[in-house]
């Protein structure tokens, strides 16, 4: 008896319906339009809001590996790479503790570093918000960037 492709299509379609229903109704699901890196307690702002905060003197933190920071970054931002957090944090801790408005960003969509850094700061009693979609959102909006290793 040959394979019946329609059955395969039906299995996939049935499983898709089950999966989407389970996600919507079980209480274990999550919003499909939301970045899965986002957890309860995280605060995100879009690029326009971040720009306003920058103009008002917010401190920006670059959570990407430091090599990216040294190529280019948001003007005034300090490097706080997720992969070298403790060392970088120790260096700028006094500055962070005296700042009330902190925005963290990383490489964008597939990048969890900004969320991780913001949570680590929160654990240490320093509130920080995340720039949604990170660096590409900032550059796509045509906002200023600074090249080189200095803030």
């Amino acid at each position, binding site marked *: 008896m040959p394979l019946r492709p329609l059955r395969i299509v039906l*299995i*996939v379609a049935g*499983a*898709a319906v*089950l999966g*989407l229903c389970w996600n919507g109704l079980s209480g274990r699901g*999550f919003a499909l339009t939301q970045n899965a*890196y986002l957890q309860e307690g995280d605060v995100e702002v879009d690029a326009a809001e971040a720009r306003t905060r920058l103009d008002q003197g917010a401190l920006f933190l670059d959570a990407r590996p430091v090599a990216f920071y040294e190529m280019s970054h948001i003007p005034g931002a300090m490097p706080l790479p997720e992969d070298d957090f403790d060392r970088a944090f120790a260096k700028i801790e006094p500055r962070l503790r005296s700042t009330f408005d902190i925005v963290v960003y990383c490489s964008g969509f597939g990048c969890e570093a900004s969320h991780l850094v913001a949570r680590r700061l929160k654990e240490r009693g320093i509130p920080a918000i995340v720039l949604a979609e990170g660096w590409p959102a900032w550059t796509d909006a045509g906002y200023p960037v600074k090249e080189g290793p200095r803030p």
Partner: protein
Amino acid sequence: MRWLRHPALYWLVSIGLGAVFVYASFDKIAHPQDFARIVYRYRLAGPTAGLGVVPANVLAVVLPWIEGVTGVLLITGLWRREAAALAGGMLVTFLAAVSYVLWQGIDVAHCGCFTVGGEGRGAGWTLIASDLGLLLAAAYVVLVRPQAPSPVTSAAVPAS
């Protein structure tokens, strides 16, 4: 190679393959958002600026159910060969995904094969080897026709 067509072997391989797929679906079904994070790391379905997050999220929500349903069909024997073909298709996709991240040097850290939390297995050569083994099992279930039960067994059924 007559032993390959032995019904007991065929039955055993189908159920074994089905059990692996059902087991693989549990943790992912229980924690869809954690599985979505793993899907992101493969960078195959996004998220990117063009695609957004929705395709990767939908894949994370739907794929474990396809695995689970396929596994149940393989165990129960309903639409068994179609389910095995689908399992084979998924395994080829997984092999392609793992080869892609190995080739690109992407550190997936946790392959998301059976669990989504804790210290997971990375994407490496042993993973490729076990996927190939499962693919062989799926091909066996699709291609081999088990022998009809022997006349002795048939005769044991009382005639009504």
